[in-house]
């Protein structure tokens, strides 16, 4: 049996920064004493002079990044999703997004798969928090290949971008020659006629697994990798709703305000169909291994499958 290659998207982020750093002199990386965890340490090793460790002071780091951006450089600042989107929320809104500064936020350790650190560090609200800020792009990659493509696209995009990466190693699923990444464009990974599963992050591979299980029951599920939550690929969402009549969203985020919220907003205005939001159900997480937590919160292949079966029943 061949082993599926697994890489944490935070590692992909660190590696992508090095590649971009070689190409672009104006790329600067900031961290808040988490360089080993966010993996910006890889960049620091290669380009120590362009890596600014701000210490444990995330609000200031966001503002410093804003100031650097005003001078034409392209800063990527990194910390855990909890602190990037939560603690520094107002700095991101007022110092970065309001003046539309070209700052990229590489938020790692999103969702419950942070694992053992527990609820204080498991941010399941970041998509919602970032999505309501005008002009903010919000995205979360499914695997290593997508994460690297996303970092490149974020550099090329003019304006603020929030990217959420994960701590846990996840299967590489986009390893094919046709793979093409574009911010704001969802990717259909599997065609189907009975329902559409729209997922992001590590829930994409789990959703593909669930779709296989559904297929065994004779249920034909379309699967979309919606790596960009904002701007949402509304065209694809609406077309899929019309085509399959039912939508399921899957994310490692609160069912309130994230991908599920965005899809519901789009569909209720344009094409109301039954929707099931799968995610963290308005609760805080807890300590445990990533695998055990994903199982408990029904975000693994089996959990997604069983929730979809209930939805269809």
């Amino acid at each position, binding site marked *: 049996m061949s082993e599926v290659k697994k890489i944490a998207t935070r590692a992909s982020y660190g590696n992508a920064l090095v590649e971009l750093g070689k190409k672009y002199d104006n790329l600067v990386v900031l961290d808040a004493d988490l360089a080993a965890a966010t993996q910006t340490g890889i960049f620091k090793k290669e380009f120590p002079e362009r890596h600014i460790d*701000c*210490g444990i*002071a995330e609000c*200031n780091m966001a*503002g410093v990044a804003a*100031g*650097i951006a005003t001078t034409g450089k392209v800063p990527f600042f990194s910390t855990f999703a909890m602190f990037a989107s939560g603690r520094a929320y107002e700095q991101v809104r*007022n*110092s970065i997004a309001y003046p539309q500064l070209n700052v990229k936020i590489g938020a790692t350790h999103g969702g419950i798969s942070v694992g053992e650190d527990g609820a204080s560090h498991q941010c399941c609200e970041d998509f919602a928090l970032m999505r309501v800020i005008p002009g903010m792009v919000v995205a979360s990659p499914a695997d290593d290949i997508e994460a690297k493509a996303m970092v490149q696209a974020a550099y090329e995009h003019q304006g603020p971008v929030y990217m959420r990466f994960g701590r846990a190693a996840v299967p590489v699923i986009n390893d094919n020659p046709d793979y093409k990444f574009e911010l704001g464009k969802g990717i259909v990974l599997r065609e189907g006629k009975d329902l559409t599963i729209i997922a992001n992050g590590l829930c994409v591979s789990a959703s593909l697994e669930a779709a296989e299980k559904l297929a065994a029951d004779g249920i034909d599920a379309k699967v979309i990798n919606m790596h960009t939550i904002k701007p949402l690929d509304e065209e694809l969402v609406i077309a899929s709703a019309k085509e399959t009549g039912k939508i399921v969203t899957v994310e490692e985020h609160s069912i309130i305000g994230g991908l599920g919220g965005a899809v519901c907003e789009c569909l209720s205005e344009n094409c109301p169909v039954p929707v099931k939001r799968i995610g963290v159900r308005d609760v805080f997480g807890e300590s445990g291994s990533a695998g055990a937590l994903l199982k408990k919160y029904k975000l693994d292949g089996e959990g997604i499958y069983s929730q979809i079966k209930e939805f269809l029943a």
Partner: protein
Amino acid sequence: MDKLELQKIANEVRKDIVTAVHSAGAGHPGGSLSATEVFTYLYFAEMNIDPKNPKDPNRDRFVLSKGHTAPGYYSVLAERGYFPKEDLKTLRKLGSYLQGHPDMKHIPGVDMSSGSLGQGISAAVGMAISAKLSGDTYRVYTLLGDGEIQEGQVWEASMLAGFRKLDNLVVIVDNNGLQIDGPIDQVNSPYPIDKKFEAFNFHVINVADGNDFDQLAAAFAEAKTVKGMPTAIIMKTVKGKGVSYMENQVGWHGKAPNDEQYEQAMAELEKAGEALCQK
């Protein structure tokens, strides 16, 4: 530019501030008037800037961290020629580019959007770090309120500035002694301010009268000689300076004069201007 010229400009700026705030029916005259001399000194004597080329990458930068004193900032920018003086009367009005707080996207000469207290200094630190990274020689100035330094972010930014030895950065604290809820030492005293910045590895210059151009000139000249550390200029000022009934009055932090008060303020400033012309 000599002191008398600067005083005349500052007097015009004060008239602009009172006029803009009166026209808006809202705004922050007290802290605009306490900082009028430092605004004027920065834009007419200190900074390397060109109103005809406001985006020059080599220009000195200014961040108004105490963004609510936008009327003072805009008035100086208008006097310096960044935009027409008449536009000051559109302050805070729907459709005007002169937003209630500084907006870098729409106001010529504004280097950073600000207004949420404690945030501007971080952006200034970022600009100073950026200059160090690419070997640029521009200097960065930021003005903070004495109440503003109650924000924890100010000290996060100061710690990084001191640690990174940002000698291209000058942090100015407008110590007018008053904040919305009362005297700063009765609300939540930030004193001693100078010792705090010293502890954060700043070269500290205390200015006894921040409404005096000679003292400001000496302070900024000293700041330029400092190597290996950022400078903090702590200047004592009078809130509401130049308008008798606003001076040292907490109530004039964020309030517009009515028509009668406006006439009185303008008469006082006209008189002060005439006195300067007699010199």
